[in-house]
């Protein structure tokens, strides 16, 4: 029997039970659609994390104090005071792969303007901050080197702080706010950046010269972090190595000694989060895959029913010259037709559903052609795999018994 006739007969047989065929197909449709949608969501979140991490400053290399051992006692990172202003200067002088560097100190507290107040964080930075963190000033100006060296009480506000202290859209420049009772002159406003990957509001901050924050608010001699920018995104590893060498020299750490600081690059962060979202994608895909499996079992079930129902037909086909193999192919053709049609409809539904979910939840969705291809191949395999046993059962029937079957 030719392939064309095989599928024509299979189609006719399915059309005899349209609704049943559709319900069976629905299992596959939902399975494939959920695989497509889940992989789309997983892939989308990966891409979005990558973009956001890159958005924090692609060339960013961060130095934070590390744990340190003193006389056998380990001290936690946050209590460490190992980084100093001089380290920043040393990095700028001695590391050719580093383009810019800023010390950072930060403190939390209430910002007060008139009758309003808002809990926020003040960051002490130098004038390279904007470049390193890929931010810009939307109105007003950045503080100057002179204001840093004189520890001037000037600041720039993030949009969230402006909104909460002055009201939406208000111009805060020239006003004086208080942070921990210290008055600050507002000289600029930062361009908004929105929420970051971890849901933190990137606009809920105050920027001031690090000297001011260090001396007037925190009253500490050390700095809490150093943010540096490598000359380009490929140089982050090189920059990390150079910074490590410089800081070990600066901190007079012996060759066998442990670093009292830690260096993080964006590339490192990126790979960490990519692997997390890869796990997420695999997990989502696996759950969806299980529903595809259930759909396959549905095909197997309905094919068994079909074989039993059509026992007499099978007997007749054998009596008039159908070989066991012909019968096998006929039933396989039916299950493949169900699974492939279901697969194609499922891909369609999956793509549409992803778009709807994506726009409704404002999630980024990325549908890879490879996941569509994968679903399609899996469907065909499911059709053959789950159709095989019922078809084999049909082909092994004895024509005499089959013809007498009631």
């Amino acid at each position: 029997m030719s392939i064309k006739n095989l599928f024509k007969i299979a189609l006719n047989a399915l059309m005899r039970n349209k609704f049943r065929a559709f319900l069976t197909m629905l299992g596959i449709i939902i399975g494939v659609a959920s695989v497509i949608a889940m992989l789309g969501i997983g892939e989308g979140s990966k891409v979005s994390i990558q973009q956001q991490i890159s958005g924090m400053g692609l060339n960013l290399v961060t130095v934070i104090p590390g744990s340190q051992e003193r006389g056998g006692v380990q001290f936690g990172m946050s209590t460490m005071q190992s980084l100093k202003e001089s380290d920043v200067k040393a990095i700028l002088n001695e590391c050719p792969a580093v383009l810019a560097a800023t010390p950072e100190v930060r403190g939390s507290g209430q910002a007060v303007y008139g009758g309003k107040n808002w809990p926020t964080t003040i960051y002490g930075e130098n004038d390279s901050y904007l470049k390193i963190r890929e931010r810009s000033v939307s109105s007003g100006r950045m503080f100057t080197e002179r204001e840093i060296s004189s520890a001037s009480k000037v600041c720039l506000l993030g949009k969230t702080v402006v909104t909460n202290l002055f009201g939406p859209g208000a111009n805060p420049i020239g006003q004086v706010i208080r942070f921990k009772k210290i008055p600050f002159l507002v000289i600029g406003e930062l361009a908004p950046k929105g929420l970051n990957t971890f849901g933190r509001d990137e606009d809920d901050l105050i920027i001031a010269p690090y000297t001011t924050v260090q001396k007037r608010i925190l009253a500490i001699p050390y700095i809490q972090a150093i943010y540096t920018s490598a000359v380009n995104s490929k140089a982050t590893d090189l920059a990390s190595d150079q910074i490590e060498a410089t800081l070990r020299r600066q901190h007079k750490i012996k060759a066998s000694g442990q670093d009292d600081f830690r260096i993080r690059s964006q590339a490192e962060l990126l790979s960490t989060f990519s692997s997390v979202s890869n796990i997420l994608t695999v997990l989502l895909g696996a759950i969806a895959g299980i529903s595809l499996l259930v759909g396959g079992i549905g095909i197997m079930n309905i094919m068994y029913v079909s074989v039993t129902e059509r026992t007499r037909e099978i007997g007749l086909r054998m009596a008039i010259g159908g070989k066991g193999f012909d019968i096998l192919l006929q039933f396989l053709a039916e299950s493949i037709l169900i699974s492939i049609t279901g697969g194609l409809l499922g891909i369609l539904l999956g793509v549409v559903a992803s778009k709807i979910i994506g726009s409704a939840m404002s999630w980024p969705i990325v549908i890879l052609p490879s996941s569509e291809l994968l679903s399609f191949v899996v469907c065909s395999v499911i059709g053959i795999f789950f159709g095989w046993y019922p078809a084999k059962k049909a082909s092994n029937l004895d024509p005499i018994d089959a013809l007498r079957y009631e």
Partner: protein
Amino acid sequence: MIRNEPVIMKKLIQIIQLKKDYHVGEVTVHALRGIDMAVEEGEFVAIMGASGSGKSTMLNIIGCLDKPSEGDYILDDTNISALSKNQLAALRNKKLGFVFQNYNLLPRTTALENVELPLLYNKAVKAKERRERSLAALESVGLLDRLDHKPNQLSGGQQQRVAIARSLVNDPVVILADEATGNLDTRTSYEIMALFQELNNKGKTIVFVTHEADIARCATRNIIFRDGMILRESLVSNRLNAREMLASIPPDDD
């Protein structure tokens, strides 16, 4: 019209000392206990017998659906004992036509498609030839005007005629009918028998299993089975002409 003496004497079916045993658990049932018979080309043989006489087993073996336990069955010069399942299927496809008591038409499938079915399993027949031969077969049973009807739109007699057309379409050497009139009323039974007689007159060899004596009298020869043996074999002397019988029965209300 009815030939009492077959002109050509070729033996299409030859059965020599054929036995068939079934094993049901530890019990062995001897369904056929040594059958010798032959069917010549152009014959219309009726096999008769009570249920359990072995006539259905005999028909299954003649139809190459089953193989003998012992003895030989030679169909059109081919000894089937040596053939594999697939070879038997091919043989059925080319040399045999089946007509069943319950018609066995595919539901929700048109008369034409039902008739085409055997040719679908013959790769040598292409689509165009398949259609032409199926139309010719339907014409020979007088159903050319019903080719698009599905079984549920046809009467029992019409369904059986579609089944006969299906058995003719591959131009078999023998048509095997298993109680082909069993589900039909007297009038329709004679219609079907008249059709078989016409086909026989055109030279078709027919083997017909029945337990109705008057149906058997439409054949040219009767073989009566009992307990797995042939009880009696006889040429039909005063053969019934089904067409004439039809004329004597008052027409149906429909």
